[in-house]
């Protein structure tokens, strides 16, 4: 088991290098660099100063040299600093000589995105599980049909549109919830409960919107898993020996039907750090999606590479975790892994 784990971890290194190489070159294929921003298109800004900047960031060197420099820094887990004029560290905070802490860009954006995505994933699972079970139990009858229609409507509704409608309805017409942002104006002066309440109110619509589109996938997955299991012999046996229907469904059937869900959740781990640009712009939430999008538009290569590398590492780790969890949950798989 340990050997298997080590082997998997070892193979992640060349994979990561390959992924970073490809992303690095694709990113640099796009024309323009940090000096071609819209703000830089100003007759008062001279070309010499832009050239100076290019040299400073080694953008005048051949691509392969730039990649080598980047890889060398990554070797010491140094994600570098942003090309933007604030030059903030890409990943984690740094202290300067006077003890001023300069927070990292990913360090600030990641918790926000994680919080929203974890909450919405929880919400999805909490809602999709019973929906899937109900659908399977009442297969092809009105409750099943209704649930299917509902989850597909949720899947198909354009998120930004529904978001605007909810913002208007719950924020303007009935001012119950804040429209955008993460914290209210007096956030600093609130108690712990007050802050949580404030944050919860700000997150309500974004989390709901992001959960709604995910319901369809998981609930149908659970439904199909359940249907497979319900047609198996041991369920018939369980029913035949007179167990109550609830016990049959929730103790015997559901547990086995949940197995494929582990893979699905493992695969969604890397998705947890990716934010939606549209939702984050709409709700004015400073998360990963907006960070990445702005970095691409600005050609802020250290930030782009930082996010891609972390994303790639998490994807590989997520796959590994899913495999391990599967092995833990299913003895048949476990035997295969150990051998």
């Amino acid at each position: 088991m340990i050997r298997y784990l080590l082997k998997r971890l070892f193979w992640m290194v060349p994979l990561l290098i390959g992924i970073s190489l490809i992303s690095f070159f694709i990113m640099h294929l796009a024309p323009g660099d940090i000096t071609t921003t819209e703000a830089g298109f100003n007759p008062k800004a001279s070309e010499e100063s832009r050239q100076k900047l290019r040299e400073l960031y080694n953008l005048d060197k051949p691509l392969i040299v730039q990649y080598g420099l980047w890889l060398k820094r990554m070797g010491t887990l140094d994600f570098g600093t942003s090309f933007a004029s604030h030059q903030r560290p890409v990943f984690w905070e740094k202290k300067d000589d006077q003890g001023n802490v300069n927070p990292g860009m990913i360090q600030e954006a990641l918790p926000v995105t994680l919080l929203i995505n974890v909450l919405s994933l929880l919400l999805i699972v909490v809602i999709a599980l019973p929906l899937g079970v109900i659908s399977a139990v009442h297969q092809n009858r009105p409750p099943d049909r209704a649930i299917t229609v509902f989850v597909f409507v949720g899947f198909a509704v354009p998120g930004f549109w529904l978001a605007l409608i909810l913002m208007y309805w719950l924020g303007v017409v009935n001012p119950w919830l804040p429209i955008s942002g993460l914290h209210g104006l007096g956030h600093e002066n609130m108690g712990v409960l007050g802050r949580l309440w404030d944050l919860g109110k700000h997150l309500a619509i974004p989390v709901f919107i992001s959960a709604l589109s995910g319901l369809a996938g998981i609930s149908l997955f659970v439904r199909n898993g359940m249907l497979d299991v319900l047609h198996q012999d041991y369920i018939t046996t369980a029913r035949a020996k007179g167990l109550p229907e609830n016990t049959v469904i929730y103790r015997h059937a559901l547990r086995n039907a949940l197995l494929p869900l582990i893979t699905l959740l493992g695969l969604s781990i890397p998705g947890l750090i990716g934010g939606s640009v549209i939702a984050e712009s709409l709700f004015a939430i400073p998360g990963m999606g907006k960070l990445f999008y702005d970095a691409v538009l600005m050609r802020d290569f250290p930030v782009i590479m930082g996010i891609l590398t972390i994303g790639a590492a998490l994807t590989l780790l997520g796959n590994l975790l899913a495999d391990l969890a599967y092995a833990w949950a299913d003895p048949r798989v476990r035997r295969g892994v150990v051998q």
Partner: protein
Amino acid sequence: MSFPFRTSGLLCAVLLLMLSACGPSQQPENHSPDWDHPYPPESGGTLIDAMTGEPSGLIPMIAGESAASAVASNIFNTLLKYDKNLELEGELAQSWQVSPDQKTITFTLKPDMKWADGAPLTSADVLFTWKLVTDDNTRTPYGADYKLVIKAEAPDPLTFRVTYEQPYAPALDSWAGLQVLPEHILKGQDINTTSFARKPVGSHYYQLGEWKNGERIALVRNPNATQGQARIDRLVSRFIPDPASQFLELMADNIDTMSLSPIQYARIFPAREELNRKIALYKELGNAYTYLGFNLKHKPFDDKRVRQAINYAIDKQELIDGVLLGLGEPVASPYKPGTRWTNPDLRPYSYDPEKAKALLREAGFADHDGDGILDRDGKPLAFEILTNQNKQREMSAVLIQRRLKEIGISVNIRVLEWASFIGRFIKTGEFDAVVLGWSLSLDPDQYGIWHSSQQAPGQFNFIGYNNPRVDRLLEQGRLELDPDKRMKIYHEFAATLLEDSPIVYLFAGYGLPAIHKRVKGIDNPAPPAGIGHNSYEWYIPAPLRRNEISAQ
């Protein structure tokens, strides 16, 4: 059929229950104050506005983007500033003298000025700032103007003197653009990386109160302000990237001001009585114009008749009505309409397709093969208009495409992401025509855009304009500091440019700020400088202030 809806209703209810398990819900305000009631000026209150972008730092010479200068202009002073009619007047400087040979400018500072931390503000700070902006290690794109100074000195605390090798007329404008930084704090620090960019100490009406990354910046009144006290206590700028969300926040009374799009201004507001009751709309001169620019090195744009024909074939009023819903005006020179630099005798090319066709015929174009497209020497008159992802520019390009088709010119439109557009096409000169914008500069000098020497990749005369007469006028204009003589030079420059038609001026859109009526003291109609010129005199009467319950 009602089932899914009941389910979704249930879901909503569950969600709301989860979120409202504890805590009081906010009381909706039922009593609506009379927003139009006049109140005497008083100080206090908070003004909340919305910005689409976040500043990267608050040292404008380093940060460079508009969000940074918008916030920093409330924190730092400049030597000179533009008054409400866009004429220069002193800010830190009480007065300034230009020497008879026009090469030396002497600024006399106002006495007894202080930084927000109480330290004295003197000419040494100005000198320090000049050294910073001209230092080769400073990563600023804006050093060029200041590097022309061959000698800068501060002989006494109230005098700052700069000497140029030869007279440089845009100098005064450049001193209205350089925000003075404190020497006593920044001395010995690396300006590129200093933490000062995130906790600045300035001398203007406000100082930084709080900066929450990605969310907002709050400014509080600076008790040591050099220009007197502003009336509003706190300015909060929230970063809301999406204009639709900004508008919802404005409707819900969570922000006091935003700039509207023409649709919001001309369609949504007139249709909603309740918005007009509490929000006032303003209209000010725009800061930029949109143009159709030709690559003058490509045929057939090297032919003036072709350029003029296209200018005649485009209906500018149609563009203004269609793209801006009427909220803009045509321009005939690259200066703000109504200011002294605008030549009042110039008129935009009228919409005259017949004249356009005649000019093209004169240039040798005719439809020889009968396909509806004019041609000359077997080559059809067809070109591609490039523009970046900007709705107004895209719509303009479409309207131009249609008008040009009517006179037999075939146009393709290609919309590109900004960095690709500049890197791939503008810098390499591989384009036929572009729809872009230039700012309507306050100083008339436009050497960088029109002088024939400014055509290298990365420079701004990328259309390749080369006219000896314009070159001479631009050079003269830079040497002449007398405003009246200068005005004549630039009037002639604008007239030559219009006649030569290297670009087609399309329109200059209005700035459309909407401000909640609780904010009083705003000039309406807006003077040429816009409504913001006296924002320190704006006030929010106590009875109209937002209920700041959360800030106990």
